[in-house]
């Protein structure tokens, strides 16, 4: 129920065009960092589509991302199928997996949902590595591709643009309104006539679809893909932290978390690699205590305070 927001779309379109030009001027090092930012922007914005309004914190991103990567790797390495076909298959598989998880977790709320999604993602990771080690006779897949970093960057930028547009449409639809109501009080949501199960599953499926698509797109960049690596739960935590740091009150808010966090994250990994898990934990605590609505939420609070002060 916000103002129509066509201006917002126009600004975003201009920014997308500018971002698309970046690889033409940036150094390889910068393109690499930009690629990571695009990847996490796509993951965090699509994560926030579901988890933002509903407040259901999902730690299953790694499951979708890993599934997407693995499907592409398997298709390209073992069956020599084209990349474009495999990313479509991977995204659909991610959507299906998310729909199944969504249906299985409908009755879970709060911390039970968080734990279930984390446990499930870990279970999938172990299951896949076990199958690979015992039945496929190898630990991973070798993939060859002609893509360079700018190609990944552009593909991920396209995903960000599509996710943004989709989110914009959802926020203006009955479905978006339904999700906000669900996030406030599910009992009320049901009693005003919302099919809460349907709304949640649709959005969770969307999140899974895009996380798998991102995992699929970057798969060839790994060159050698192993289940343990591609399903690493780090990615689930990073996505949650970045999205919460930026905030989820606006579609673009997660990006405000992605950019600074990724820079710090890269620095930590370069200089204090053994402390990275500790850093995730500390960052999580700080965000929850100091910035419960993210940087953008905090700024909006300040702005409305200043306005009240004036009037």
């Amino acid at each position, binding site marked *: *129920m916000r103002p129509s927001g066509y201006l917002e779309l126009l600004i975003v379109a201009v920014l997308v065009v500018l971002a698309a030009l970046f690889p033409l001027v940036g150094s390889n090092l910068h393109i690499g960092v930009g690629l990571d930012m695009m990847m996490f922007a796509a993951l965090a914005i699509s994560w926030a589509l579901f988890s933002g309004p509903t407040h259901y914190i999902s730690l299953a991103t790694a499951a979708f991302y890993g599934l997407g990567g693995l499907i592409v790797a398997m298709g390209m390495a073992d069956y020599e199928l084209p990349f474009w076909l495999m990313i479509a298959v991977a995204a659909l598989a991610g959507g299906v997996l998310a729909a199944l998880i969504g249906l299985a977790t409908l009755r879970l709320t709060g911390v039970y949902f968080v734990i279930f999604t984390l446990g499930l993602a870990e279970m999938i990771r172990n299951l896949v590595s076990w199958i690979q080690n015992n039945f496929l006779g190898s630990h991973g897949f070798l993939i060859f591709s002609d893509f360079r970093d700018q190609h990944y960057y552009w593909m991920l930028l396209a995903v960000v643009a599509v996710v943004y547009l989709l989110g914009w449409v959802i926020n203006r639809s*009955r479905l978006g*309104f*339904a999700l*906000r*109501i669900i*996030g*406030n*009080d599910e*009992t*009320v*949501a*049901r*009693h*005003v*006539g*919302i*099919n*809460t199960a349907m709304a949640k599953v649709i959005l969770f499926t969307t999140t899974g679809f895009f996380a798998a698509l991102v995992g699929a797109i970057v798969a060839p960049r790994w060159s050698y893909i192993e289940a343990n690596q591609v399903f690493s739960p780090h990615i689930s935590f990073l996505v949650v932290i970045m999205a919460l740091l930026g905030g989820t009150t606006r579609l673009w808010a997660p990006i405000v978390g992605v950019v600074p966090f990724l820079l710090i994250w890269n620095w930590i990994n370069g200089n204090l690699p053994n402390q990275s898990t500790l850093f995730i934990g500390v960052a999580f605590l700080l965000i929850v205590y100091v910035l419960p609505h993210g940087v953008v939420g905090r700024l909006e609070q300040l702005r409305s305070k200043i306005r009240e002060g004036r009037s």
Partner: protein
Amino acid sequence: MSPTGTPILRVRGVTKRFGGLVAVNDMSFDVGNHEMVGVIGPNGSGKTTMMNMISGVFRPSAGRITMRGRRLSGMPAQNIARVGVGRTFQLVRLLPGLTVLENVMAGAVFGHSRRWGGDAVDIAHDMLDRVGLDAMADAPVSALTYIDQKRVELARALAGEPEVLLLDEWLAGLNPTELETGIDLIHALRDEGRTVILVEHVMDAIRALCDRCVVMSSGAKIAEGTPDEVLSDREVIRAYLGDDDA
């Protein structure tokens, strides 16, 4: 005594067990079109549980609830809302992250009428106006007093244009002045010919508002009739005052 005309809502032999506790025991009653029916009874007698079964929070352990011949018992709450049952909650439930107007729109957008866009905004404003709160439309709900919160909840229920409205102690917790305003408001609903089930402890309100009353005690129906009839019934007095005083 049964309602005049064909009943819109029928409750037949409805029972609800929570483990060993029988919260509602073999309840049967009808609600006629345009009728205001009071459900009264001592604390813990099963009134809210009865409302919860009508609105679909719980499915009855036994028995059947129908509206215009359509079976409600067993349907999920969202379908019951769409068929045309609206309600307020004994402990007010607003959507704290939404504005007053958006709270009311929630009823209009997904309820029985399923409006959208300007249409939903219009009816939400109308309903806020109806409960005397349109000036607060853009306020956050945290800015509201208790009675105003109750008004918003009523407006939300009305915005769905329900055929049957369930009010669970909507007047509870109001001070004497607010109570008068509240009774007038519900009286206006009655004058509009709305079908309402009113759970209340405030006897003056019951006398002023209800065509008929159903009295519950320990989950069962112990009396039914006009407010004057049931309030002078010996068994009802005993249920309220305890065995010794009767």
